[in-house]
């Protein structure tokens, strides 16, 4: 291959790599991965207190330093969120409860549980009294 062609192809390779970096937000991602921890990045990418409520479950897990999952009840149709607790995802602690997407008409079991976290009267974290 002549030298000029080689240089052009190398130039093209660099342009394409930069284009891929731009498309994937490489430099911003790099900054985020170095500056934010895994759980806060997880919280950023999911909805907080709507649909799956994944962000809220992450928030509660971190705030109360939970290693096993509380019972999770979601009033929206969604996959179970126990996977957030990794290898302990099957060891559900029935004394703790996360409520997601509570509607106005739904009543909470206030007598049995104490509310430890309330997000806009929609998502709750509760423990048995």
């Amino acid at each position, binding site marked *: 291959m002549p030298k000029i062609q080689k240089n052009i192809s190398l130039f*093209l390779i660099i342009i*394409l*790599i930069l284009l*891929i970096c731009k498309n994937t937000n490489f430099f911003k991602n790099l900054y985020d991965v*170095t500056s934010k921890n895994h759980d806060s990045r997880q919280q950023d*990418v999911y909805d907080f207190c709507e649909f799956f409520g994944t962000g809220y479950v992450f928030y509660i897990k971190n705030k109360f330093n939970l290693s096993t999952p509380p019972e999770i009840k979601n009033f929206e149709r969604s*996959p179970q969120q126990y996977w957030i607790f990794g290898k302990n995802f099957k060891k559900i602690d029935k004394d703790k409860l996360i409520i997601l997407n509570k509607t106005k008409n739904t009543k909470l079991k206030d007598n049995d549980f104490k509310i430890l976290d309330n997000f806009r009267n929609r998502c709750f974290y509760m423990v048995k009294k």
Partner: protein
Amino acid sequence: MTELINISSYTILLSLLLFMPFFKKRFLITKKISLGEYDLPVLNILFLTNLFLIFSIFNFTITQVTSVFYSIIFIFLIFFFSNFKKLLFPKNIIYFFIFYLILLLIFSIDLSKNLSLYWDAQKMWLPKAISFYNDGLIKDLKNTAYSHYSFLGSLLWAFFWKISGSEYEYFGRIFFLAIYLFSILNLLSLISVDKNIKIILFLILTLITYDYWLFRGTQEILVFSFLLILSKYLLNLFMDHKNVNINLLNIFLCLNLIIWTKNEGIVLSLVILFILVIFFKKTTKFKLTLIATLFSMILVRFLIFKFNGLDFDLSKDFEFSNIISIFLNNFTIINLALISKYIIFSLFKFPHIVLSMFFALAIAFDKRLFKKFIFLYVYLILSIFLIFLIYLSSPHDLDFMVSTGSMRLMLEFSAPNLLFIIIFLKNKFKI
């Protein structure tokens, strides 16, 4: 910063794993086989992934498999350094390795930032992966949702998560990236051009096919990658009459992986078998052997499920006893238009499908080429027909089913269509 260092070192480890030649040329079964510089790594990775599957079938836990894996790597390293000069390690491979590694790193960083998992991944695939990760066996999958689904993707997810030494699940998904990039690079080995041009094509193909959407924990990207590896050997089989055995070996290794990755992989493997039987010019006895081999592989898959007490259904979304009446009931212009609409949407979602269709059309105008590669057009028609068949046989709300699944089906079935691009370039520029 620690996480970034972990990601970087893990991508280097994965790249080495996918590129290292684990065989010496003279170890291969027959001397008639002449393997290209890419074929050895392909054989390695296909054997390795099939081996993980066999280990899990024989009730090895992930921790045990990881120990075996590290032992093999240790033995290999001793072997590698003592036989360095005798091993096949072409210079071009090192050049491609560097660019492969750069892309794997860029996409891994994207994965580690985005992290979000799709509904199916949260409900089905990750719980299965966690079960394997915690040394669960196949029989333990009956406690997970959709236990009748094939599980190879979750097994690989768990294994590569385990060997990463990290607590984060996405390290397992980096392997999905690795095999995807590897399958594209492997496809490009079909054309003989300068290494820089090949890298440019590699970058363009990844630019038009990569999307984080594919790596949200769903399994279609694995089927796509295995099917893309298979496509290369399918083309070799029909075009180049040498190395029939090695091409067939690669094809059947890929088919086995596809069968164990997704349930629709079983149907997909039958489509590939149909193409093989119709277009492969061999004796009837030989073709019967191919049919028997694939059906045995499918039978083994069902027997293993039955043996481990898992659900036997192919899909719970279908009522197989009433499938014909459901199909006839769904067979309306409105439903056909609905499915067509989402197939057209997927063309916009995945530019490589549009590009493939464009080149398929261009090749169709050349009678000689069209006749030569008619098997690809048959595959294209069968795969689209299959999508219609799947959805028209569904008893559920068709709009919901098609809107949530058709694009993923189009993606996984689209891998062999990339051959249209390669064939066009090969014939137009004589490369």
